[in-house]
């Protein structure tokens, strides 16, 4: 017969229990937190307006409004899809350029891990989105899926260029005012000089001045 000292064994068992319990609590809390964190990760991109427009156009139910709402014309749907593709192209370019930088910054510890998680998720979402656009395009017109992103790319590049031009154009008024002011001042200076020296013809000076001032303005407007 063994005499088991149950009292004495209580301590080691309690130790094991406490240890196991502590580890288990830690792991559950840690995991739950991680899941909550990744669920709450802010999306990389904002709401996709173009996609939403396209989808709502696509699912515009004729039954809803009865006979009143006509079928959405195909052209409108295609335009909406193209717009959606343009937005996708912009996002795609952004992801492509940011990937390497984000990776190297993460390695150096200059940005955080959750940024990388968000980035990876955005990348995955982007893939899904592209696939979806291609199938949608093929559904609207045969084989359109292969070229839709080419046209979208052109459109995106064009829009960018036009924006830039508009920005430059927007400065014309201010520039014009400045040059006019400058011209007035130079003219006044000339007049003063002429009056002082009382030599040469006033007209010539003005013409020369006008030519000098005009040329950069033309350049700016181009």
């Amino acid at each position, binding site marked *: 017969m063994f005499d088991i000292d149950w009292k004495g064994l209580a301590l080691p068992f309690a130790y094991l229990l406490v240890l196991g319990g502590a580890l288990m609590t830690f792991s559950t809390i840690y995991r739950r937190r991680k899941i909550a964190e990744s669920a709450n990760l802010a999306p990389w991109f904002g709401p996709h307006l173009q996609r939403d427009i396209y989808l709502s156009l696509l699912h515009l139910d004729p039954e809803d409004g009865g006979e009143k709402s006509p079928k959405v014309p195909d052209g409108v749907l295609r335009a909406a899809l193209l717009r959606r593709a343009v937005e996708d192209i912009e996002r795609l370019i952004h992801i492509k350029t940011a990937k390497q930088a984000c990776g190297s910054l993460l390695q150096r510890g200059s*940005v955080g891990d959750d940024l990388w998680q968000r980035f990876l998720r955005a990348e995955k979402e982007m893939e899904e989105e592209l696939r979806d656009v291609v199938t949608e395009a093929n559904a609207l017109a045969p084989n359109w899926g292969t070229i839709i992103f080419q046209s979208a790319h052109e459109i995106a590049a064009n829009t960018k260029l036009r924006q830039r031009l508009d920005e430059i154009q927007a400065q014309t008024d201010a520039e014009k005012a400045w040059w006019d002011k400058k011209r007035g001042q130079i003219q006044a200076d000339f007049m003063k000089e002429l009056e002082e020296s009382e030599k040469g013809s006033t007209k010539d000076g003005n013409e020369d001045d006008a030519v000098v001032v005009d040329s950069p303005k033309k350049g700016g407007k181009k």
Partner: protein
Amino acid sequence: MSSSDYSYDEQGQFFPFFILTVTGLVTLPLTYSLFRRSTDDDALAPRISSDYKTKHGDVVASLRKAQKRKQRKIKRAIFVVLGWALMAGMVYLIVVTQRIVPKIWNPYDILGIAESFTEKQIKSHYKRLSVKFHPDKVRPDPSKNETLEMLNDRYVELTKAYQALTDEDVRNNYIQYGHPDGKQSFSIGIALPQFIIAEGNGKYLILLYTGLMGILLPYLVGSWWYGTKRMSKEGVLMESANRLFRHYNEEIDEGGIITALSTGKEFEAVLKGDQAESGLSKIESRISAEGESSPFACGFSTKDKEKLEDLDSGVRRKVLALLWAYLGRVELDDPALTKAKFEVGAIARKLNQSFAAIALAFGNIGPIAGSFKANQHLIQAVSPKSSPLLQLPHINDKVAAAIEGDSKIHLTVQQFMDRPDAERRQLAVGKDLLTAEQYKEAISVGKQLPFFRVAKAFFKVTGEKVIIPSSLVTLVIKGRFIPPGTENIPAIDEVSLEDIDAAEDDMDAILGRKKKIVKGPDGKPVAVEENSALPPLTFAPHYARDHSPKWYAFLSDSKQDKMAVPPFTFDKFDQPIFTEDGKPTFNMVALKAQFAAPPQPGHYTFCMHVICDSYVGFDTKMEVTLVVEDASKAAEMEAEDEISEPEEDSIAGQMQALKGQPTGEAPKPKRKQDSSDEESGTDEEEDDASDTNTDTEDES
């Protein structure tokens, strides 16, 4: 002494030593690190002397002081004090505790004789003693508390001692083990006091262990781990760095960077609670009011204004408004807002470093240059589009506008200072402008600013004449610090433009010790201590931190607008910039940056940027061409330059034979290499001064 068990330190004679050593190992390095602060660069760097005080100089000063207090390592100091206290206690214990010296068994002592006794003398002495102490002869003395046993023992000891000196076997035992009986038992002591294993203390000990291992250790490891995850490498909160990354785009300009910086999480600590929005409308109306020389008082563009107005009101919007108020030096007439304004400016600069790292990772030159510029503007509190002249004391928008006239391009400080004094004075001094004293103050500060004027920039490979593909190229930038408006600038000494390689037998230089070879006035190489001269602390009366200026040099590919060689930082120089009394020394300073040459031979034209991070308009941009020669061509050229062809039996000759070139071959007709432009120098130095390219043009 008879058991070989571990014994605890009952008398407490060893554990103080143990604790003293362990505490000392931790406390001494900590103490060193605590007091090393006094040799900080910021404390040692000279100051630009000026009595100028801004209107809110006291606010800026108090913020600087608060920052210094924060940097003081209070926790470390407490730890050090505790450590020293513990060490002192241990020393006290050591001094007080009586030491028990284990007795060494010495037969001479037992017999009570000198070691010089001969064997005969010992024998006779022993005989006398044995007669005297034999247990049969003596009786135990009750007054001395003696027993028969003790008497016996004493006699045995005497006999042993005698035998140890006379008997051969016993003597051998004595010599070998230090005792006539042979090997003695030994004990191992643990330098821990007895009371920790004493009965009844066990539970406390377990508690202590649990506390240390179960709570303190995980806490320390955890706090360290999460601390490193919380802060980015640039010392900003990770969350802020992430937000900055999200706001990066290729076309971002300086205003955009300022807007991006306002996303920092650090600001939330400054604008807590009801401070988050208070006074926002006031700031916004002030900064959007019409300015002296710009459409808005704070100098932002309409685009930046729209960006501000697009934000939801809250901390971020207030931060951005405050930042613009800081940059535009807009008066806010409210002590709390004014303080927040300066604090926000200082934090934004810190965040900008993180942005710079992000921009560097992307490698587009636009945002990189933008972040460097934003740094300058944040330190000097000058709006991106306003005049660099605002860096000088007393000069405000109005004075700057008067000085510049209605030119579209701003005057830099150098251009202004290079004008004749009379002209400057006429422009700046007048009614509503500067008084004569203020003008003098501005000029005196201007003459102390360290403007780095590049004299020459070239590429070289240490010890080689040409640059071969994938070699380690050194970009050497030679220049002098010439404050704006300095008169009588001495001409450049041609000798100082050369870069001398360390002699091959100079181990110090090869091992990278802090010595540098410079040509002395007599043309002989002189070794000087490298990188010891500090530039004066930045003159930035609005910036709420002390800042040492740094210079950055980087190469960009101007065709692709991409970074080619990432920036190298220079904050210490090999030669002093100013003399003790603040006069420029005009020493030629060398900035060196090493990088790997491109893998293909050819001519590479880079745009070299030398940027000072603290002053606006002190940047230098120039074209430099890196000529990479084909490796075989380079070997050819080397052969041409050889004064005498190596003999067949010499090591050099064998080396050359291995390379596949016949020795003693007639020298080929010399081909003129336009790219390798050898320095004119004395013959023996021609080998040392090897640079390949000098066609650099100063653009600025």
